C-alpha cells in the first residue's frame, strides 16, 4: 500500500489497469463495499433513500481531479483528521477491527480505481 501524496492528491493510479466506471458504479452501490449512498446523496433517481451525513456527490467529477478523489477515498483523514469518512484503502492505525476484516482494506486498489473512474462521470 504505497503511494505518493502531492498537494492533497494521489496523482498516480494505484494499479496499471485503468478504472472501469461501470464496475465502479456497482461497487458504489454494493453494501459490502462502497455503500456510498448510506452517507451521501447521489444522482441516482432510482434509489429512494440517500444519506445526509456526507456532502452530496452530484457534480463531484467537476469539483475534483482524479488524484484528489483518489486520496479522499484512500485516506481522507490526511486531508481532514476529524472526518467521519472511512479510509477505504488503509489497514494501519485502526482499533478493534472485527476478525473477518482484520488486515484488509475496505476496497482493493483496483476497486478504488474503478470508483474514481465512476465518480469522474458525475458531472
Amino acid at each position: 500500500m504505497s503511494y505518493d501524496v502531492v498537494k492533497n492528491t494521489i496523482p498516480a493510479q494505484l494499479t496499471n489497469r485503468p478504472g472501469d466506471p461501470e464496475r465502479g458504479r456497482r461497487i458504489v452501490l454494493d453494501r459490502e463495499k462502497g455503500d456510498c449512498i448510506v452517507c451521501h446523496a447521489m444522482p441516482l433517481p432510482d434509489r429512494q433513500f440517500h444519506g445526509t451525513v456526507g456532502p452530496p456527490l452530484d457534480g463531484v467529477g467537476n469539483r475534483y481531479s482524479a488524484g484528489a478523489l483518489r486520496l479522499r477515498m484512500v485516506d481522507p483523514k490526511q486531508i481532514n483528521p476529524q472526518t467521519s469518512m472511512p479510509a477505504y484503502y488503509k489497514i494501519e492505525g485502526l482499533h478493534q477491527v472485527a476478525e473477518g476484516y482484520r488486515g484488509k482494506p475496505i476496497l482493493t486498489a483496483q476497486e478504488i480505481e474503478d470508483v474514481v473512474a465512476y465518480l469522474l462521470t458525475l458531472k
Partner: protein
Amino acid sequence: VNAFHKEQTKRKQRQVFLLGVILALSALFLTAPLLVAEDSTPYVVEDRRSGYTYLSPENQQLQNDEFANPGQLWVEKGRELWQKPEGAAHAPCSSCHGDAAASMRGVRARYPRFDARSKKLINLELQINRCREERQHSAPYPYESEALLALTTFIGFQSRGLPVDVRIDGPAQPFFAAGRVFFMRRRGQLDLACAQCHEQYAGQRLRGDVISQGQINGFPIYRHTWQTLGSTHRMFAWCNSAIRAQPLPLGADEYVNLELYLAWRGRGLPVETPAVRR
C-alpha cells in the same frame, strides 16, 4: 336469492367494520387521557432526546399501548420468575424483595452503579445474577437468555416514567471516565466512534433512517430489526459489528462502563422499559 344473500353478507360485513371503527375510536378516547395523565418525565430534556422522539407515530403508539407493546411479553415472563422459587435456597426474588412495584421502583434509573465488593460497576443484569448466586444459590443466567431479559425487563418496567439518575462521582468516576473514552474512540474497519454518529450526526440520515442520539433509557427494547427484545449490551455489540469492529462479550466491563456514561449522558430522560425501537 343469491343476490339477496350477497347483499346480506355485504351488509353484515359493513356492520362488523363499523363496529370495529367504533371500538377502535372508543379505545383511542379511553386511552388518550390516560397517556396525557401518565406521570412521566418528558421525552426531551434540554438537548437530550429519547429514541422515542425519532419513532413513527405508529411505533410510539405501539410502545404506549400496554396491550400491544411486544416487550410486555417479557414483563409478564419476568413477573412469573419474580415469584418462582429458585436454586438450593428455594427462594423466589419476592422472598427478599416483596412486591416489585414498591421495592424495585426507581432501581432501573440508578443503574449501573458502583459495587463496593467487586470494586467495579454492576448493571441490572449482573445484579440479578449476583442475587441468583448469593441469595438463591443458583447458577447465573447466561447474558441475553430469555430469563435474564425477562427479569431485567420486569424490574426495569417498575421504574417506567422515572428520570434516569446515575451516580458518576466518587468511586464510579474512573469507570464513567473509561465509558466516555470508549464512546469517543474510533474503532472498527470503518474507523468510527459512537460520538460521530450519535452526537455529531444525530438527526441526519443514514440511507433512509434518522440517526438517534443513542440514548439507552428504554432498554431492554423490543427492536423490529431483531424481531425480539434485546439488552443494552446486545445493542452495543450490534453497533460495533455495524462498523466492522469486533463486538465484545455481553456483560464485558467495557460495555458496563459505556452503559454508565450513556445513562449519564441521557440523565433526566424517563425509563421507558420496554421501549419499542426500529
